[in-house]
């Protein structure tokens, strides 16, 4: 048993840390925020050049052959800098799904461009009233000639406005909540019948609503078997959830450290406010929260690859529940301890607050994952 990073993992982490330090300061990030969709093509090219876009993909697929631990390193560092570019949605979620479940032809067609930074993907699986349950699918795909006609609406799809193609979940069978009968399709964002309404998200990124009106796709657009998309999708979302937890860990760590620094420098009533015991103890609460989250991200990164889907789901839900709860605590208290200045857009603390608030509602709220864990725990008895 050991929890040390390999030399390669350390190299990647150091490189991303350096990027954040040199190219993604709070002021530099403001410029990205001002760009359309909060996306900087230069940064994305840089990520490609550094090989970061290839981390989750095997060397056969043209990637670096990294594992979850490598992705977690990148995401944690991205979290410290609140990176806006869609690494999570395009590389981890969509890319990971293709890497694990795409056909050889699909991988060949998509992955080099993804890894090279030339194309972006997004996964369109949530619907207006599906909340966070990937099995709740009302979008339908009907057989049509050799292929399918897809109709329906997807809501709040992360990274949709910048995606060249979407992975869309649609029913080829089964009832609204059945896990069986869900199929995944690759859909070109510019295909006739696809309409994307984009908007910015509270953390500065982008998302969109996707309307599909009789969108024709070929048989080769099907990812995985017909009606067997749920397992793939569920696994992909679980992997993305772990990555999101790592991102949150980085953001929490930064918010906590900056708050402790502020306590040391800000003076009121003639003394540093960090000399007030009530604030000291609250700072300790944040510190212990961050350390415990580090443990949970470690746990989830080791267990998300478990072959038993129940073990995987429980580990991921445990992590998301726990990190979500602590993220809210850290976000709220970082603002509270900064006082007025923490309430402004001028300081990074408010941005960490929004990043962490967004995280809490990503891939399932804290309560969603508590329920998911509890139900699996009771069934596993």
């Amino acid at each position: 048993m050991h929890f040390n990073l390999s030399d390669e993992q350390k190299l990647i982490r150091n490189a991303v840390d350096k990027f954040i330090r040199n190219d993604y300061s709070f002021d530099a990030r403001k410029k990205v925020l001002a760009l359309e969709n909060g996306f900087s093509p230069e940064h994305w090219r840089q990520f490609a050049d550094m090989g970061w876009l290839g981390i989750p993909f095997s060397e056969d697929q043209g990637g670096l052959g990294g594992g979850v631990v490598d992705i977690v390193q990148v995401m944690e560092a991205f979290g410290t800098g609140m990176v806006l570019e869609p690494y999570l949605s395009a590389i981890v979620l969509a890319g990971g799904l293709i890497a694990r479940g795409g056909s050889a032809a699909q991988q060949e067609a998509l992955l080099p461009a993804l890894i090279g930074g030339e194309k972006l993907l997004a996964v369109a699986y949530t619907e207006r009233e599906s909340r966070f349950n990937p099995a709740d699918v009302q979008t339908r795909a009907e057989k049509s000639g050799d292929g399918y006609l897809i109709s329906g609406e997807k809501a709040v799809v992360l990274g949709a406005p910048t995606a060249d193609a979407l992975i869309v979940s649609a029913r080829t069978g089964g009832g609204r909540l059945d896990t069986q009968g869900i199929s995944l399709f690759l859909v070109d964002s510019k295909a006739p019948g696809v309409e994307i309404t984009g908007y910015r998200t509270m953390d500065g990124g982008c998302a969109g609503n996707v309307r599909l009106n009789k969108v024709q796709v070929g048989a080769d657009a099907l990812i995985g078997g017909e009606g067997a998309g749920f397992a793939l999708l569920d696994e992909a979302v679980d992997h993305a959830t772990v990555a999101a937890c790592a991102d949150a860990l980085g953001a929490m760590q930064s918010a906590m450290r900056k708050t402790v620094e502020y306590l040391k420098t800000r003076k009121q009533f003639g003394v540093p406010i960090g000399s007030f015991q009530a604030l000291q103890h609250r700072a300790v609460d944040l510190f212990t929260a961050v350390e415990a989250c580090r443990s949970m991200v470690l746990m989830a990164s080791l267990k998300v690859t478990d072959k038993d889907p129940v073990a995987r789901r429980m580990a991921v839900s445990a992590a998301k529940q726990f990190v979500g709860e602590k993220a809210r605590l850290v976000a709220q208290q970082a603002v509270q301890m900064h006082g007025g200045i923490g309430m402004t857009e001028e300081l990074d603390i408010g941005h960490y607050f929004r990043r962490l608030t967004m995280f809490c509602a990503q891939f399932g709220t804290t309560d969603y994952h508590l329920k998911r864990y509890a139900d699996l725990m009771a069934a596993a008895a």
Partner: protein
Amino acid sequence: MNIDFSPEELAFQQEVRSWFAENLPAELKRKTELGIMLSKDELVVWQRILNAQGWLVTGWPKEYGGPDWTPTQRYIFDMERARANAPIGLSMGIIMLGPVLMAYGTQEQKDYYLPRIRNCEDWWCQGYSEPGAGSDLASLKTMAVSDGDDYIVNGSKIWTTYGHWANRIFCLVRTSTEGKKQEGISFLLIDMDTPGLEVRPIVSIDGEHHLNETFFTDVRVPKKNLVGKEGQGWTVAKYLLTHERTTIAGVADSKVHMANLKRMARENGANGEPLMNDPSLRQKLAKAEINLLALEYTNLRTLAATAAGKAPGPESSLLKLDGTAVQQQLSELGVELSGQYAWPWKADDGVGPDEFAATTMRYAFTRAATIYGGSDEVQKNVIAKMVLGLNFK
């Protein structure tokens, strides 16, 4: 003991309820219900409608144009105002400056300013906080130096709420650096268009422009704009804190917020069922409603004591602590109910259900409730020392 309103009070309640039903513009009602920020123009129009009815300056005595209501009537009015989804108004002039002028202002000041507040000719903002001071208000540094009939003011104020809408500002300034720091403070009225006064926006965590920083560079202010005596500013400012505050808990608005959240949970679904059918969500809503009920009864106890003529005690600290806790809990629930619709930021209508559109912004901005107006930490220090006697030197 008797929780019921008297027949007269019930008739008053009915009168107020009917009036709001007939006079509140639909668009204002919609925006208030959804938690969307109003423009200054919208507020001024609305406050003039209220004023025409004689119901704008509800806390003012009759001689200054108030309706001369009892504390219970004011409480009922506030409940009905909130119940109608009518805006609370951002009335620094009405709630803060008016009572100060009545207590400390010269006759000339009262005659000039009070009607202008009532008629919404003036929009006042407050200049208390400074960048370096925070909760330690008395350490303020903005200087007013005597120069003949004027003061020359230099310094800066922060967190000037809606300062960009205001044409006047009431300020605490330092007129002396001698003695205890509280003793050198004076209360000064300043026109916002005086040369040397500059307002710079501060964008808040909800992405909106509510706040400002206000800079004073050799701003010349006539001495007749002093309220109270020179050096009496701290006393004047503190007067408001001990002033009766039966609405500081925000019960009326929280009750409406609660009702809106329950409606959201009934009218929106997840996985084929109304959100209200989810036991944990239902219990979270229930818990918030129970907390609010406790707050309401603490508020009623204070109201009953006030109506019986008892001097206000530490209740306002307690009501502020518990009241803001409820506001934050409700705003969190709004985000919870919004599900994935919590992500879109200031997105146009139609992205998702309308009632989710502003929940996240409201959540973000409500974090201020435990910071401004005496932070949680300051309130707790006050109660520990003043009420519990945990005061050691």
